[in-house]
């Protein structure tokens, strides 16, 4: 994207954000307020997933691990330690950072396939911990399949603004990545990791950093969702559907770009909402077909159309 288009897009974005910030004061409420909050959540999630998978090319198939971990961490901190929400959220982010540092360091030293499946396995393992942990350990902590109930949340506007804030943060970080040394390093890893290594790029360190960044923010978003829903169960916050949607939103919009996740997530959340729960079985089939078609026909997503080149992926 040329600099001029990029800054035009930025101006439009900021104007939209300002407008969105003002809407509740103008009377936006109820269903529409919550719908927009959901859009903000998914754009943020897709954007975070993009930090890692879009920019480094190492596909993370287990981001929901941190979403769930963050949800549970926030819930447990608030319920059992009586910590206020902001503190719980921050601490959840730290916990997810530590967890992802460990898993990332172990799995990012070899080819992407290992990372892809190991992250998926991690998500399943964490889900199992939340389901079976209590029974094995012998005391009440995770709540098993009954889940956990959080303290009563504030009004919907709180979540609207919190999630809008996260959206701005995530987009801001994407911009930062695009324009700085860190971003160039990540992109070099994606394009040609050996060449990057031979150019002095500390590839493992950068990959792990990107993974920690992505995962800790996803964890925070999980915490927000937990507080918003008030009631969390493993099958919901560790549900592989969340991973699938993050993948497809970013893929559709354009991986490794600033606006790709925004477009993809915004579009898909609204489409899913309007199609309702009508096509449950078919929804997955359709998603699968969409992924296949996008890979074969438009691997760079919608953004490649915007940029004016279809772009072969290789």
């Amino acid at each position, binding site marked *: 994207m040329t600099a001029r288009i990029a800054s035009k897009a930025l101006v439009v974005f900021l104007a939209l954000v300002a407008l969105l910030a003002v809407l509740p004061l103008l009377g936006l409420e109820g269903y529409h307020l919550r719908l927009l909050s959901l859009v903000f959540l998914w754009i943020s999630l897709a954007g975070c997933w993009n930090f890692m998978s879009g920019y480094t090319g190492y596909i993370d198939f287990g981001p929901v691990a941190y979403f769930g971990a963050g949800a549970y961490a926030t819930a447990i901190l608030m319920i059992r330690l009586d910590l206020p929400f902001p503190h719980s959220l921050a601490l959840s982010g730290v916990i997810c950072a530590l967890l992802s540092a460990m898993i990332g360091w172990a799995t990012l030293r070899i080819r992407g396939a290992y990372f892809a499946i190991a992250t998926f396995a991690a998500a399943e393992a964490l889900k*199992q911990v939340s389901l079976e942990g209590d029974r094995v350990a012998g005391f009440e902590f995770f709540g098993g399949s009954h889940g956990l109930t959080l303290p009563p949340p504030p009004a919907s506007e709180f979540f609207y603004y919190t999630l809008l804030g996260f959206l701005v943060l995530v987009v801001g970080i994407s911009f930062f990545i695009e324009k700085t040394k860190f971003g160039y390093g990540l992109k070099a890893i994606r394009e040609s990791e050996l060449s990057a290594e031979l150019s002095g790029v500390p590839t493992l360190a950068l990959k792990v950093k990107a993974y920690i960044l992505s995962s800790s923010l996803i964890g925070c978003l999980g915490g927000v969702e937990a507080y918003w829903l008030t009631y969390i169960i493993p099958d919901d916050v560790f549900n592989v559907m969340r991973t699938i949607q993050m993948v497809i939103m970013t893929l559709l919009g354009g991986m490794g770009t600033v606006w790709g996740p925004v477009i993809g997530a915004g579009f898909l959340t609204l489409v899913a909402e309007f199609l309702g729960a009508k096509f449950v079985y078919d929804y997955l089939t359709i998603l699968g077909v969409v*992924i*296949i078609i996008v890979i074969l026909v438009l691997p760079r997503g919608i953004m490649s159309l915007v940029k004016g080149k279809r772009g072969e992926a290789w």
Partner: protein
Amino acid sequence: MILFLQSLINGILLGGIYAACAAGFSLAFGVMGIVNLSHGDFVMLGAFVTYWLFVLLGWDPFLTLPITLTLLFFLGLLLQKLTLNRLTGAPPIMSYLLTFGLHLVLSSLALRAWTADYRTLNPSYAGLNFNLFGLVLPYSRLSTFSLALILIFGLYLFLYRTEMGRAIRATAQDGEMARLLGIRIFKIYAVTFAISAAITGVAGSLVAQTFVVYPQMGLPFTVTAFCVVVLGGLGYVPGTLFGGVILGVFESLATTYLTAGLSLVLTFLLLLVMLILRPGGVFGKGALE
């Protein structure tokens, strides 16, 4: 002591099946560099083919193996020609995402067709056991284990003793060179993937006789295949037998002595440890790059 031995035996028998599930995965990876995230769905489809032939036509699960083999062979061929073929030369990311899409389609179509009900295969000899010094060895497990061994050994013979097998190995080692030698690598890729699907389908038949069958069973088996391959070495087919047995024994012992509930967690930790300490597998012959 008896408990330990029983657990060990169970693990070994289980491991044979795991190895059979993973052999196709290792083959597709070794030859085409494709990590097939829909791999487990071939297990699922093989299991269902066996199940329906048994339930609807009364045909014994062991006798229908050739049918499963053939059906899955052609399915694999079809999928490869339609989709994966276009990804030759693409960065691996593309194949992860594409095969992930395939997984979604296959598992959700199966769900649509057959509902989420759990099903079990109950041939007449299902509950019969062989007793050896107080150890229980179910007939069906013994036979599935033997078949798994035959399957892997057969694959090995195919790869090392037949012309097609040699062509496949040549392509795996050096695609450019293979092409210069007159080997039509696109045909090799198609056949390799089809073989991978076929043997995985047969493994699925074996699975159907041991485990519960349901449309979403695929993904856990993809993860299992992956674990076996990490243990045995990615791309190293002989290693899959040992990888499978190690995983089987590990899970069995962990379930008996630690806890059944956290088996996934323990397997994941095993995976992490392997990746940190010995990513090339127990024999160190796995592909890392």
